């Protein structure tokens, strides 16, 4: 995709004369939410390194990045892989505040995690403004389909009732992972990319930029949903 000659949108043209960056790179804050053990870290690891490893429970929040190239823009996903453990719930809003994309993950072989995902959703709905965040319901561990406790239809129904997008994945086998990330990328760019103040631009050398930001709230700078 990088080979395609990009049709650069207005803002990026300013930068197109800097040699290394023919396309604009926008920052996308994406948060993974869900119960402990549904595979959030495994999904994140797939997104970033396309690897699978058995992981330990995440502590606090892990921050990873991955750049996705679309035809006319690059999106730098800043992935916040949160801990599913309850003790971190009080700080989780810190991580999902101002997210552009939220992946609400459950384990298709554990109904409890699906119920829990709905609680997360309710929590999330208190904080986000429709149109500023793209939410995906992700049924993970699709490889455990023989122990399935949540049907595809149920997932789809919840998603369509609440205006979410839906996909089933397997971090173990890698099934649907890149599809998911690409779909999120397209959707986020479609919904937010062209909006004024929707996505901020990623600076290769955010040195000075960050310096300015430090004085204000670093989270509000990349998103329109304030605290």
């Amino acid at each position, binding site marked *: 995709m990088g080979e395609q000659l990009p049709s650069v949108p207005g803002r990026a043209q300013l930068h197109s004369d800097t040699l290394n960056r023919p396309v604009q790179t926008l920052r996308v804050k994406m948060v993974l939410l869900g*119960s*402990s*053990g*549904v595979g959030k*870290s495994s999904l*994140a*690891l797939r997104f*970033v390194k396309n690897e699978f*490893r*058995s*992981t*330990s*429970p*995440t*502590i*606090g*929040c*892990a*921050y*990873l*990045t991955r750049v996705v190239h679309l035809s006319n823009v690059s999106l730098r996903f800043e*992935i916040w*892989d949160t*801990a*599913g*453990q*309850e*003790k*971190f*719930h*009080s*700080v989780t809003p*810190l*991580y999902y505040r101002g997210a552009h994309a939220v992946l609400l993950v459950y*384990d298709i072989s*554990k109904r*409890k*995690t699906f119920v829990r995902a709905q609680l997360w959703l309710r929590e999330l709905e208190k904080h986000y403004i429709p149109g500023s965040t793209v939410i995906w319901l992700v049924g993970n561990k699709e490889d455990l389909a023989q122990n399935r406790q949540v049907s595809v239809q149920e997932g789809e129904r919840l998603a369509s009732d609440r205006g979410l997008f839906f996909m089933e994945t397997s971090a173990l086998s890698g099934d649907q992972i890149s599809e998911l990330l690409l779909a999120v990328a397209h959707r986020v760019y479609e919904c937010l990319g062209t909006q004024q103040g929707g996505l901020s631009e990623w600076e290769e050398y*955010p*040195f000075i930029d*960050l310096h300015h*930001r*430090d004085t204000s*709230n*670093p*989270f509000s700078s990349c998103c329109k949903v304030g605290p």
Partner: protein
Amino acid sequence: MERDNHQEGEADGVKICGPTSDGNPPGKSCQRSPYLDQVTRPEAEKTENFECQNSVSGQQSTRGPEDATHDNDQSDSGEFVVTMLAKAKLEEQGIGVEGRSSPLLEAGTLESPALASHRDEDVTADSWRQHRKHVFVLSEAGKPIYSRYGSEEALSSTMGVMMALVSFVQSGDNIIRSVYSEEHTVVFLQKGPLVLVCVSSSRQSERQLRGELLYVYYQIISMLTQASISRIFEHKKNYDLRRLLAGSEKILDGLLNLVDSDPSFLLAAVHCLPLASSLRDSLSQILQKAITPNLVFSILIAKNQLLTIVQEKTVIEDTRLEPADVHLLLNLIGASSAFQAGEIWTPICLPLFNPDCYFYAYISYLDPPECTVCLLLLSTDKEAFYAVAECKRKIEEAMVAQNSLNLIAKVQPYSVSQVGVSDLRHFMYKPFDVPDNFRQLTQFTSPEMEAPYSNEEEKMRLLDLYRYMHSRIHSTSRPLKLIYHVAERETLLAWVTSKFELYTCFSPLVTKACAINAITKLLRWIKKEEDRLFIRYPPKYSTTPNPSKTSRGGKSDQQDSTDNGFLSLL
């Protein structure tokens, strides 16, 4: 030999579950106070009158007379408790093999086989009873919170019995401290609404075991804070704290393994990697330059040991960083492989620094994919992730420019042969604070364990000997300054002065004169190498916009905003 003793001992201990309190071994008479007196008098020191150690005696078994007297004079009461605990276990047979079934963590624990096997252990099996050291944590309502081996559910009635003991003694306005049986020492520690119990056949002193329980308590505090734990239990006495600790068992498991294998915990001191002082200084300077407001500690770690630590000036004027807090941080880093995946941002409490508030820790490895060099930055501002991550980028850049990572990779623990003293096999040296470095982090230095202590079993045996020496030096009833101890396969000499604490291990054929001469040489060598072995003058930086002595007060503001979340969970 000590090791063999343990195993044999544990085998005996298992028999205790039947009512087989047969015969006290002859020739070991002791004070026979009633059960409660022995178990419960908080300050009563046991069997002082039998403490008859020649500090510089010749041959002597590895088990001192102190131990022997304890074991036997209290065997009756001990057997009673052990029998009771064993009975409780039998009642649980039905649920013994069931794994934990807390809704939130079942999936999480499945993934790690080692973890699963400990959790799924059959608590009625002999192998479960033969573990060298059990640790249990329960709430005052008797609810299980943590068990090192086996699932808490399966152990709920065992923990019920423990709680019964605690409350029975409490009802007599007293506090249960410990129970001794022939093979086991049971130590109780009550901290706020939590009760911690250790059942050990490791022959450690009660004080050492209690110290280890305290580390477990601190680790729990580091995840939840003391204030939120007390608040939770004030609201709901029978709250199931496992809800909040779900997924953290591995951190506690890791801590207990470290406590058993790393002498830092015994010595309450931090082990830093020996490093040419020029390299250490350059690393410190790199950290000193990469700062942002509210950053309080910058710590660089390699191979699980400290490389350097830089501290915020006003914070450190208020209080010092305790070794135990550093141990907890190192354990946290070691316990999670997830750290290797990216950058971590997590609330963490340093219980000795302030048990009621959170710091925000930024953790990242600097040398992926090897992941041996780890940077830890602590901030008081929970919003500071991007700013702190930027510090890391600066540090990384400077380290590349100075080729630091390659230099660090070459750093090795030193060999005892470098000291150049024959017969000296190993040592641990812990200098005490002297006036000019008051506020300094307590450290110790120790060479690598080499043959004959290269395998795990032998390492443990040497550590057990050190623990024994340590317990004699720090005995509350009869502390000693100097011990020359001839064990079966080595000779040990421990010496404590106002300036240092030293434990040395020699080959068995060393003479007393030789050993003392060797120690003189060793001390001279340490003095010479001081700059390399220790972080001499921990550097400082200033990141608070308005330096004042109120840094603690400032932090307490954040406490409210962070841990009130727990109340909503009730």
